[in-house]
């Protein structure tokens, strides 16, 4: 027998009170764990996807939409821009790198992105199977796309109009899969990649005129959807966005600024949930306090008996503190497990929706803090009951009954 086993035995004898305290604490802890896991993983993924991209240029519209579509492939693009813009930026001395992307089609919910090989190099992606595209109409699948569709090298499929891939099919212009990329942990995992020419070809074949002269005209009007830019010097940050935004048909958006804005908007919801979780944890502390404090009256003989058996008052203090700490420790453990289970469930659902992946298997340093705070709440909740147990007047208690 020791204080821990004595406390546990007492807590087991009051299953309803114990369950209530545990449940409140576990729910509070689980909510915070879930928030911490989801927010930190999203931030990590989003900053990794935006790494090395200083500016996104596209058609006029919402700058946040431009970022979501251009970098994260999570929104519809704002429109197209003339190909001539690409050449202009390539000549601009303020720009080190220009990556043009042509969007518009999808396949089984994954986006088909027309790009140069430099787009893959930017994220350090290499084919795990097969090779990169050389000819138009050859595609390379991101690791996640290959895994979820079960399609591999040698397969042939038709893209569908619309980025979700649920529009009308381009049956006349099928793609050939020539490679599958290794996993990068970036947005590329969820993309189908091909050359910009493939995207043009698909649309010109279907909607373009048969006449050669007209086709030539069409080719001169070719467009891309977005440009990902990397600055050559800090000076570019001061000059380029203003330059671009003053042109009538182009818009520049800074990923750093727009994602910060996005997290500020989402942050209101996150803060509200965090406040709710803190309320739950405080309620758990109160529940522990009330359970221990109100039980003192019916336990007064138990406590007095322990004194007659030779226990010093400090031991009764320790016993009550232990009960608070045991409750808090159990509640925290259940909460941590629940939080990770919820994150894993959410992750599985997001994955099935082809959204950002979230895992329940990662641990964060914040969770240690959270556990320490929860234990502290249990300890503080037990202080006053413990003090009253410490002050038990044995002789009077026993003389009363």
């Amino acid at each position, binding site marked *: 027998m020791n204080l821990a086993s*004595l406390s546990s*035995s007492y807590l087991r004898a009051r299953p309803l009170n114990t369950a209530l305290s545990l449940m409140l604490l576990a729910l509070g802890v689980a909510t915070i764990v879930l928030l911490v896991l989801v927010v930190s993983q999203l931030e990590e993924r989003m900053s990794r996807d935006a790494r090395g991209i200083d500016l996104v240029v596209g058609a006029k519209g919402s700058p946040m939409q431009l970022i979501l579509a251009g970098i994260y492939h999570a929104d519809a693009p704002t429109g197209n821009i003339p190909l001539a813009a690409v050449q202009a930026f390539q000549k601009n001395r303020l720009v080190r790198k220009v990556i043009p992307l042509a969007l518009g089609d999808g396949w089984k919910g994954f986006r088909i992105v027309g790009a140069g090989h430099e787009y893959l190099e930017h994220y350090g992606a290499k084919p795990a199977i097969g090779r990169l595209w050389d000819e138009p109409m050859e595609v390379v699948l991101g690791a996640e796309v290959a895994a979820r569709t079960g399609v591999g090298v040698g397969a042939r499929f038709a893209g569908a109009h619309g980025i979700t891939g649920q529009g009308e099919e381009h049956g006349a212009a099928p793609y050939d899969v020539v490679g599958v990329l290794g996993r990068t942990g970036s947005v590329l995992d969820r993309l189908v990649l091909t050359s910009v020419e493939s995207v043009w070809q698909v649309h010109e074949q279907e909607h373009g005129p048969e006449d050669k002269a007209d086709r030539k005209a069409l080719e001169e009007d070719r467009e891309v959807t977005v440009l990902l830019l990397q600055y050559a010097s800090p000076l570019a940050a001061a000059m380029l966005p203003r330059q671009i935004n003053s042109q009538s048909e182009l818009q520049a958006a800074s990923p750093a600024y727009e994602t910060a804005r996005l997290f500020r908007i989402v942050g209101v919801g996150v803060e509200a949930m965090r406040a709710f979780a803190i309320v739950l944890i405080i309620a758990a502390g109160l529940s522990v306090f009330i359970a221990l404090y109100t039980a003192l009256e019916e336990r007064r003989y138990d406590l007095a008996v322990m004194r007659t058996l*030779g*226990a*010093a008052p*400090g031991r009764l203090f320790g016993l009550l503190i232990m009960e608070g700490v045991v409750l808090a420790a159990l509640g925290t453990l259940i909460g941590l497990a629940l939080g990770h289970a919820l994150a894993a469930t959410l992750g599985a659902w997001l994955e099935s929706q082809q959204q950002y992946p979230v895992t329940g298997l990662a641990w964060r340093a914040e969770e240690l803090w959270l556990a320490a705070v929860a234990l502290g709440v249990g300890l503080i909740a037990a202080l006053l009951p413990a003090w009253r147990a410490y002050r038990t007047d*044995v002789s009077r208690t026993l003389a009363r009954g």
Partner: protein
Amino acid sequence: MISVRGLAHRYASTEVLRVPEWSVAQGERWLVLGPSGCGKTTLLHALAGLIRPSEGAVRVAETDLKKLDGGDLDRWRGATVGIVLQGLHLVGHLSVRDNLRLAQYMAHAPQDDARVADALGALGVADKAARRPADLSEGERQRVAIARAVVNRPKLLLADEPTANLDDRAAAHAAELLLEQAERHGATLVVATHDARVKQKFEKRLDLSA
């Protein structure tokens, strides 16, 4: 074994106990008699070091209780005194066996299951070891309370109204058990009671009503 001199105790300036002089030799069996409210329980608490009397000196087992400070007094009590409380007060959420282990743990005695089994066996309740106190009869609870008081082999065994609420046969039996257990462990026995039925079993009496 026990030496009391000029003992008086007051609660809020009301005197509840006065024992001018009382000596008990090692191994003696005493009854402390008197009606309710005459200070029997207070005397037992003074002997066990549960209260510090307002006046006078109490020596138990060669120890002047006044000279022990809080923690030492608790430790001394655990090692020296076994108490059967009025109302027994077994701990309800613990099994019979754990009630005895609790006595060992709180007295800082080694946790010795053989000794627990021996104490329960000697009182005929070995088969109730795994039960909760609420599952036992009143007589069985009494035996467990006595077993808990003697499991640490105290030099002094105190019992407060052990025969209250018992019928004649059970009362006689409870007195027998206490005498038997005191004998078995070589303990001095002091029983506080207002119950005339057990008088003839004890030679030595201290009457507080006088």
